[in-house]
Every structure is written in structure tokens, then in C-alpha cells.
């Protein structure tokens, strides 16, 4: 940081002081209780120091004192926008640890829920990004109109709109009725039309292009070195998607492509998300076609869900990861044969993607820092845990 300050003063013939401003924790666009300690030279950013921990809830420690089944509702609160994806990752980790089979129908339901979650997340992120750009809530409300429809589905299926708590080891909590599947089909059918409308309003907008293009460029090598994942990594042109790499659940059955960015700037991060939603719609269509009646949870696992203290995975460790809408969401579990996990760790994409914030922001204007933060897509529940 010292070096950067010195260079700015050297190149500046006028003897001016830098201004240190705290953006947050109560700021309209830090997406929660996050603080950026920004040093400004006029309007230009000299250094950024992210300060976090305002929402620390001791998630991992709490989980280590609970039974495996009781952790599931806590994972909802990690990334409270995409509770289904969080459930998915945790269920995968426990299933790996205890070697539990998942019936086919449950797999399909899981994929459908995960992809619906991706739609919810990406559409809202783009809305909030436009809010950060100053578009006074219009894109957000258009996005939320679509989000509401999907949340209604979540409510019908799991009983809750955001804190779904729907996945169980070896399946899902309840079966999905045919009426609900029909409703999902309708939403999926109409979604491309909504995306077209959304894009018609945004993608070619000159102010949006001016503001987003060549701002906050993340070079691919830096992205890989900083272990960035998710749409932020793919916007930099690195072809890495856990759905393709890991082929967890039944993702290898679906044909879909991974959209890759060109330059890795804010605009690419915006557009990669749009393209990703289009691919998600394809996955959903195939999954809705392929889903067959059957068991929604493995019969063996129903027994230990009723008696959670009897569920003792064998001694060992497991790492389950999913492509959450924000990136690689991983759960690391170590079992010592007791009903509680001996160690439980969450690899949250929000936290790790945020590490490049300073590299992206330095040299840009204040307004750019806000949209760069918005394009990285953080959720404080997951960041601070």
C-alpha cells in the first residue's frame, strides 16, 4: 500500500492530500454490512482495504456442536439468496462421507432446484448491479418480478421462500407434485422471453457499456492464482465449471455449454451471467423432460433422519462441492464416528472472490469501485459466516 501512495504523489505535481473514506458498514450499496476502507486521491482510488466480520455468526463452530442433520437449516443462512445451492453442497459432502445413495428422482429434483436458484441469483445480481450503476430500482424490480415466481415455487415445494431447508441426505424432504412441475415448466418456458426483454433494455445501453466496459479487468492468470471461481472466473475466459469438472449429481446427463468472457471486465461478468441463465434454462428443460416418478429419498436415510443422534458416519473426511451461483461452494467434513462432525469447514466463494477487490479497484474512480463490488457478487451471510 505504501508503494502505491508514493507513486501517486510522485506523479502528481500538485501537493494534495489523499482522503480516507469508509464505505460501509452502513452504506446503500455494499450489499450488507461490509466495509471498504478506501483511500482516495480526488475521485481516484489509491487503495482499498476490505473490512469484514460484522456478520460473523460462528457458523462452523455451531455446526461442530450439532448433529449432521441439524446443520442443514444453518446452511440456508450462509448465502441467503440461494439456500437450495447451499443445501446441495452440504448434502453432497455428507453423502460422500457416509456413502449414501440418492435415488434418481431426487437427483432430478435437486438439479431442478439448483438451476432455479441460479436463475434467482443471477437475475437479482444483474438487477443490483444496475442499481449500483444508478438505474434507480427499475431493473431490480423487473428482476424481482421473475424472482417472485420462482420463490413461489420454492414456497409450494419446501414451505419456505428463502430459507428452504429442502435437501436431506439421500434425497429431498418432500416429493414434488405434478402440478408444481407443471408450474416450473411454465416459468422455464417464459424465462427466455423475459431474458430477451431484460437484455433489450440493458445489453446495448450506451451508458451501461461506457460504465462497465474495461472497468475492473481481472486477468485470467490473476484469477487462477487467487482461486477465483464461478462467473467471475469464467468472465476472465477460464473454462472451469464444477458442473463439468466434477460431474456431481447427474449433470453429465445434460447437454449445456459454459459461457466464457472476453476481457474479464464488469461488462463480461454481467453478460456471462445472462448467458449462464440461458444455459440453465436448457438444463431445466432437459431435467423437466427426464424426470420420472420414483422415490424422492433413499428408504434407509429416512430412518436416521427420524433419529439424528443415531446417524454416525464412519471415521474419515469428505469434501463436497457444487457450482453455486457465486462460484465453488465447498463443504469439508471430518468425522470421528460421533453424531457431530469433528471438523466442519465452508469454502465460501464470496469470501475468496473478494480477495481480488483491491487489484480490480486501484486506479479507477469511486463509482467504479461500487460496480466492481457489485459485479463480484458477494453475500455477507456467506462472506462472514
Amino acid at each position: 500500500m505504501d508503494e502505491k501512495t508514493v507513486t501517486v504523489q510522485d506523479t502528481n505535481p500538485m501537493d494534495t492530500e489523499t482522503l480516507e473514506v469508509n464505505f460501509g458498514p452502513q452504506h446503500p450499496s455494499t450489499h450488507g454490512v461490509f466495509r471498504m476502507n478506501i483511500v482516495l486521491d480526488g475521485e481516484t482510488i489509491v487503495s482499498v482495504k476490505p473490512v469484514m466480520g460484522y456478520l460473523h455468526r460462528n457458523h462452523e463452530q455451531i455446526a461442530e456442536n450439532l448433529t449432521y442433520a441439524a446443520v442443514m437449516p444453518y446452511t440456508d443462512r450462509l448465502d441467503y439468496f440461494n439456500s437450495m445451492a447451499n443445501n446441495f453442497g452440504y448434502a453432497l459432502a455428507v453423502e460422500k462421507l457416509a456413502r449414501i445413495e440418492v435415488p434418481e428422482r431426487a437427483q432430478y429434483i435437486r438439479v431442478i432446484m439448483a438451476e432455479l436458484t441460479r436463475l434467482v441469483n443471477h437475475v437479482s445480481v444483474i438487477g443490483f448491479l444496475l442499481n449500483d450503476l444508478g438505474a434507480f430500482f427499475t431493473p431490480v424490480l423487473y428482476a424481482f418480478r421473475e424472482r417472485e415466481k420462482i420463490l413461489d415455487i420454492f414456497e409450494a415445494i419446501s414451505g419456505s421462500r428463502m430459507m428452504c431447508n429442502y435437501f436431506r441426505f439421500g434425497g429431498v424432504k418432500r416429493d414434488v407434485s405434478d402440478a408444481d412441475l407443471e408450474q416450473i415448466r411454465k416459468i422455464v418456458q417464459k424465462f427466455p422471453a423475459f431474458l430477451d426483454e431484460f437484455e433489450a433494455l440493458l445489453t446495448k445501453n450506451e451508458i451501461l457499456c461506457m460504465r462497465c466496459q474495461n472497468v475492473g479487468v481481472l486477468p485470467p492468470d490473476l484469477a487462477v492464482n487467487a482461486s477465483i471461481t464461478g462467473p467471475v472466473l469464467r468472465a476472465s475466459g477460464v473454462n472451469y465449471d464444477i458442473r463439468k469438472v466434477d460431474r456431481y449429481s447427474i449433470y453429465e446427463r445434460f447437454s449445456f455449454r459454459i459461457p466464457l468472457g472476453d476481457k474479464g471486465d464488469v461488462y463480461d461478468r454481467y453478460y456471462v451471467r445472462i448467458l449462464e441463465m440461458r444455459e440453465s434454462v436448457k438444463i431445466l428443460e432437459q431435467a423437466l423432460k427426464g424426470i420420472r416418478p420414483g422415490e424422492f429419498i433413499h428408504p434407509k436415510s429416512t430412518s436416521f433422519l427420524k433419529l439424528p443422534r443415531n446417524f454416525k458416519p464412519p471415521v474419515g473426511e469428505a469434501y463436497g462441492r457444487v457450482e453455486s451461483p457465486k462460484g465453488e461452494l465447498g463443504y469439508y467434513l471430518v468425522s470421528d464416528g460421533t453424531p457431530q462432525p469433528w471438523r466442519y469447514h465452508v469454502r465460501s466463494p464470496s469470501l475468496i472472490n473478494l480477495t481480488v477487490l483491491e487489484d480490480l479497484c486501484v486506479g479507477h474512480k469511486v463509482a467504479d469501485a461500487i460496480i466492481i463490488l457489485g459485479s463480484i457478487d458477494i453475500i455477507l451471510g456467506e462472506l462472514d459466516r
Partner: protein
Amino acid sequence: MEYLDQLFVFAKRLMLDLLARFLPDWIVLVASMVISIVAILIFAPLTMMYLTLLERKVVGRIQNRIGPNRVGKFGLLQPIADGIKMLTKEDIVPFQADPVLHFLAPVIIVMPALLIFAVIPFGRGMTAVDLNIGILYFIAVSSISTIAIFMASWGSRNKFSLLGGMRTVAQMISYEVPMVLSVVPVILVAETLSTNAIIEAQSAGWFVWTPWGLAGFLIFFLCAVAECNRSPFDIPEAESEIVAGFHTEYSGIKFALFYMAEFISVFAVSALAVTLFLGGWKGPWLPSWLWFLLKAYALIGVMFWFRGTLPRFRVDQLMGLAWKFLLPLALINIFVVGFWYFSPGLWKWVGSLGILGPSFWIFTKLNRSYVPENRVYRLAEDENNETVGA
């Protein structure tokens, strides 16, 4: 018809006639001024109150929602509820703020907004003061608000306020230059600075229907939007960046005064744009004052439309637009109007379009850094790659 058109003029004359029966001349003269002042002081805040409601309704429709509808029928009493809330809120002065500046800024900012109303011709014979330097007066008075905003930002002792203040001063000074220059062609053609005479000069046709008038109108309107700190030029109070800019540290009625100044200036600059380019109160069938209000509200509607749809510029892009695009175009426009004035018949049109069109094109090309790029995206499958354009 004539009666409707001159309704307010007759009402004022009636009152003055009544007074003249009992009172000496100088009191009647004072009363004449007081009536105009009171009319403006009632009209301006009322306009502001219902503009806030109108904005919330219009933006609400744009955003797919209903807007305020709880207080009174269609939410018509909402502005009054807001006013009561603002009046009863605690007035907070930050620790270590400069109390004098902090107090004076909201008072001073309302003044120029109200003063502009003096020269606005609301209808035939409905100008409060028919100044022969009306336009000059408008330009002089409207630049006072810059000082008030800087006082607010400096006096609050808040870093967000300070950033907002710096942005405001830079923006308002930059945009005043092309704004003034875009008015010059109108003055040259009308050969007067008086607002009434400018409207009379548009008897043959509104100025906006000429090439220089259209260019002047667009420059004037864009600059007017920027002068009022409205979206997409609202960087001085950019909510997502610097919280609320210069009025971050204001609460209660002081905040309401900033809000009032903004909305009154919105109306004032729209009214002036109507006067200068859209023929003022001239129009068939309807009373003149109704025509004037209709035109002004149409422009205000465009401003609300901007607010509901456009993202915000960045500081450097905002400055670039003013200095690199609007200013040279406004200068060319002055030359064009001279050409228009001295050439005969069809040559006017050919010549002015021949100058304005290419210069517009050249300035667009010179500002190429602001033109969006086309991007190509790869869609990676396992083996074969496809591309899709954005």
C-alpha cells in the same frame, strides 16, 4: 374563451381596482407586487409537492408497481403526509459541523429556485416581472445554487458531503457553459432578452422546428437536467456511491428544503425550455396558461422517464460530455444561426443542416472512447467451441 385565457390577469386587476377605490396609489403598487409574490410562493411549493407525488407515480408505473395510494384517494394527500413527517423530524446538526453554513445552505438554495419564477411567462400577460433582461437574470440567479450546495457540503463536515460538493461544483460550472451558449441563438434571432418578447418572436413557428433550434433545445435540455442534478447526471447525490452527496447530513425540514429546491428548479428549467424553444404559452383552442403548463409538464415527464430508465454517468464521462461534445456543438450552433439569419429561402435549411449534421458526426467520432465495444463470447463445451455476440 378570452375570459378563461385571462382568468388570473382579470382576478388580479379586479383586486387592484377594489383597492384603488379606497387606498392611495403607492399602496396599490405594493399590493400589485405582493399579489404576484404570494401567487408564486403558493404555486411553487404546491408544484413541488405534487411533482414528488407525480414522480413516484410515474416511476412506479415504469417499475411495474402502483406507487403511493394509501393516503387519500390515489395517494393525493401523500405530499401533505410527507410534509408533516419532515416538519416533525428531529433536526440534527453534526458534531463539529459549521452551524452557520449548515443552517444557511438549505435556506439559500431555495431562493434562486423561487427567484427564477419571476421572469417565467405562465400565460399571455402572466409574467410577474416583465424584465427586459429576463434571460440574463435567469442565468445569473440559477448559478447561485452552486454556492449553496458547496456551503452545505463544506459545512456538514462529512467526507461523502465533501465528495458530493466537489462533484456538484465541477458539474454545475461545466454544464452552465453549454447551457448559456445554447440560449445565444434564440437571443440572436429574437433580438431580445425578455422572455415575453421571445415568445412573441415564435408566433411564426416554434424555434424547435428549425435545425439550430432543435440542436439548441437538445443541448439546453440536457444541460438543464444536469443543472438540476437529475438522473442520469445525478452524480452529486449518487445514492449508490456517496450515500446522498451534499445533503447526507441533513434531516427534517432542512432536507425537505433541498428536495424542494430540486423540484422547483426542475419545473423552472422546464418552463424556461418551453419559453425559449417550444413557443411558450402559444397554442390553439386551450387557454394560454394551460398550454404552458402542459408543455412544461411534458418536459418534466421526460425527466421522470430518464430517472426511471437510465443508469448514471461517471464523473469523467460527465465532464467529457459537457466539454468535448455539448460545448463545441453549442458554439457551432451560434455560427449556424448566423447563417440562417442572413441566407435566403431554401439555402437556410440546406446550409444549416449541412453544417450541423457533419459537425455532430465529427464530434461523435472524436469522442469514440465513449462508444460501446462489440464483444464476442465463447461457449465452451467439452470439445467444440461456439461463439455468440453481445
